[in-house]
């Protein structure tokens, strides 16, 4: 049935809401990527099967809902039972019968599956009380984990497309732009350009056609929030884009998604088809006269395509080489036409701003960075997953209060924010408030919200090497400073990691890093030296330890460390079987020995030893 008027949408919403809230109790099974990889699909089917068999009074097959990512990825598969908020972690197929019989039938909590706080060892049954969730304020992620992303009716039931209806019924395009401008929303893709200003510029340019593009090319390794939004709440992205199209007057939009996110591609395509079928996309949306359609454009796996002009070339089917943006892409973008390009999180936030008002949104966060921001916590952190917090919260709160700190009793060393274009911040910067400007001032950046936490077993020179090698291989190769400069910078960095670097090299690196920043054509090159410069700024002593003392304080750089076996060794042979160069000898139940001449210092033995019997020096 086509929804061709706003009235019809309201009536349909009532219907959807009734179906959505019909079951008294609901079982939400998280089918985000991480949970899926751990067997969530089987868990879901088992629930459906057993619930149907048991014929419980308040739980039916309709009660079992699959959702997108719930955010707490390290504990998957996750199962949440509402309305109690009972939160089960690491649920296996075998646990399902127990949950159905005990929790669903008899309202008993299964202790074994309950969340245990890693620090306090306290058990928390209701997920609202877990610090990871309690400290969050979810705007962009509002529906992630709460609805079935494949069901448009679910999105409608929770109020979806309400903002679009409001816009079409009561607001002029200029009022929409004003509302977004007043909310002081800044683009969530990294640079933090004011969204309202971007829309206003695009709307002002004389043109026969304008485009709206959603940047879903989440290329920063270590960031996965956009993937989650696209895969868990696709319609909120579509709704944001349609509102934008209305505001700037565009008939055609594109969503550029990475091919590495196959689930997101499928989910988005399905959402677009559903929206089109219902008349929420296409000609005469909701009978308002607005016509707008969206095409899904799959990226081919190139980090540089996160850059706006490269992305637009890729959408047009070309090699993703950026162009100089002395004329901004909002004026001359896709096919040289005015184009609004915002990222997934920005678009997903738009409907909420429209519904709740600019003032409400602007009151959240800080004065210059309003609202909330989603961060992907990964690396050496206890609670890996997605969190959405108000801007201005400190890094310490995110990493220690929400993220649960560093696992295995190790010490925090640095947090890498903003992906390869960002930087590493040390412990003495951890009380900084997180907003666009503070992070940039500190030598890093917000980026797409990736936060990779590093402990004291991380070598910062090696981290710089890693990012430089990433960027050198992802450089499009068009301009010299980026193509040749990053490559040479990487060569120096490798030299230092190998213990053959000199202080003169370091000086040369700093000099060329500055030229690369100024001289490169696009953002990739201009920010390419950041990982090097920020690690050098905060961890110069580590560079010097590599250069002067030929030591790697993190115990990572192979040419500068040795592995030895201490007396804790129980002779379990685990290291012997994993050693790729057969450098370890020994018998069962006797202490093993590493032949230093053969050892390639790969660290495999260290990784597999359960008894802390391997020393790194």
């Amino acid at each position, binding site marked *: 049935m086509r929804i061709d008027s706003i009235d019809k949408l309201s009536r349909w919403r009532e219907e959807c809401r009734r179906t959505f809230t019909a079951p008294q109790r609901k079982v939400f099974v998280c089918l985000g990527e991480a949970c899926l990889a751990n067997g969530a699909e089987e868990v879901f089917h088992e629930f459906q099967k057993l619930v149907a068999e048991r014929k419980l009074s308040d739980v039916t097959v309709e009660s079992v809902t699959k959702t997108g990512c719930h955010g707490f990825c390290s504990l998957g598969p996750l199962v949440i039972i509402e309305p109690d908020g009972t939160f089960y972690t690491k649920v296996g197929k075998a646990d399902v019968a127990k949950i159905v019989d005990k929790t669903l039938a008899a309202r008993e909590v299964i202790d074994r599956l309950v969340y245990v706080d890693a620090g306090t060892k306290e058990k928390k049954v209701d997920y609202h009380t877990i610090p990871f969730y309690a400290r969050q304020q979810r705007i962009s992620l509002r529906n992630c984990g709460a609805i079935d992303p494949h069901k448009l009716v679910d999105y409608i039931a929770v109020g979806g497309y309400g903002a679009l209806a409001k816009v079409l019924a009561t607001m002029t395009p200029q009022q929409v732009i004003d509302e977004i401008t007043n909310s002081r929303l800044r683009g969530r893709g990294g640079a933090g350009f004011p969204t309202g200003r971007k829309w206003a510029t695009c709307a002002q340019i004389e043109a026969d056609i304008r485009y709206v593009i959603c940047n879903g090319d989440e290329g920063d390794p270590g960031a996965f929030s956009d993937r989650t939004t696209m895969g868990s709440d696709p319609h909120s992205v579509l709704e944001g884009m349609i509102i934008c199209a209305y505001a700037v007057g565009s008939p055609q939009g594109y969503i550029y998604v990475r091919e590495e996110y196959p689930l997101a591609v499928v989910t988005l395509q399905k959402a677009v088809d559903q929206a089109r079928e219902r008349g929420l996309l296409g000609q005469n949306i909701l009978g308002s006269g607005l016509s707008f359609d969206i095409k899904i454009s799959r990226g081919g796996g190139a980090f540089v395509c996160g850059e706006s002009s490269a992305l637009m070339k890729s959408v047009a089917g070309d090699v993703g080489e950026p162009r100089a943006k002395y004329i901004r892409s909002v004026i001359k973008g896709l096919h040289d036409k005015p184009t609004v390009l915002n990222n997934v999180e920005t678009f997903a936030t738009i409907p909420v701003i429209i519904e709740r008002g600019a003032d409400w949104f602007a009151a959240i966060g800080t004065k210059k960075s309003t609202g909330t921001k989603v961060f992907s916590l990964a690396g050496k952190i206890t609670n890996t997953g997605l969190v959405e917090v108000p801007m201005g919260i400190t890094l310490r709160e995110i990493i220690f209060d929400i993220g649960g700190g560093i696992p295995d009793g190790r010490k925090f060393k640095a947090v890498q924010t903003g992906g390869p274009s960002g930087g590493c911040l040390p412990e003495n910067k951890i009380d900084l408030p997180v907003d666009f400007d503070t992070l940039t001032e500190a030598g890093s950046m917000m980026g797409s919200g990736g936060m990779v936490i590093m402990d004291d077993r*991380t070598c910062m020179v090696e981290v710089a090497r890693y990012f430089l090698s990433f960027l050198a291989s992802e450089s499009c190769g068009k301009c010299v400073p980026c193509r040749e400069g990053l490559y040479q910078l990487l060569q120096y960095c490798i030299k230092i990691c190998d213990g053959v670097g000199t202080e003169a090299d370091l000086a040369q690196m700093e000099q060329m890093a500055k030229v690369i920043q100024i001289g490169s054509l696009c953002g990739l090159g201009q920010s390419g030296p950041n990982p090097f410069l920020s690690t050098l700024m905060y961890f110069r002593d580590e560079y010097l330890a590599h250069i002067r003392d030929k030591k790697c304080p993190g115990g990572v750089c192979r040419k500068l460390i040795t592995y030895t076996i201490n007396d804790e060794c129980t002779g379990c042979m685990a290291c012997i079987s994993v050693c790729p160069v057969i450098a370890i000898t020994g018998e069962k139940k006797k202490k093993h020995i590493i032949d230093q001449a053969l050892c390639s210092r790969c660290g495999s033995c260290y990784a597999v030893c359960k008894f802390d019997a391997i020393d790194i020096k």
Partner: protein
Amino acid sequence: MHDLTKIQEIIDRAPRSSGSLIAVLQDIQREFHYLPCEALTATAKALDVPLSKVYSVSTFYNAFSLTPRGERVVRICQGTACHIRGADLVQEQLESGLGIKPGQTTADMKFTLEVVNCLGVCAMAPVVVIDDKIHGNVRCDKAVKLVKKD
């Protein structure tokens, strides 16, 4: 020789404009697990795009391979989180276990090893993807077994 009709079928599904180029190549890649030479020529002709541009595009993006790949594609994630959590070790074990470097295929055409930048499953780092199945928290000593077993 490849099934030219199959290639043509894929091309015919897309709108005949240069804008479809990447999408068509992706579909061909999905079908054949690589881009056969004749497919590039046919695509260039059908979309009226210079062959040189088709070749540029297919060498520029990571998603495309111009050499045939093995029955099973093993992809090791080298995203930041995986790197910090020891993806290098896993990669080394896989390299020595399969006897190939990333980008190569074993002589018996069973396995292809590839490195990807980030699959966004950072919570389970380090991650190895075999065909399309994601394996998380892969221990370096288990990696080869994991690949050879299923």
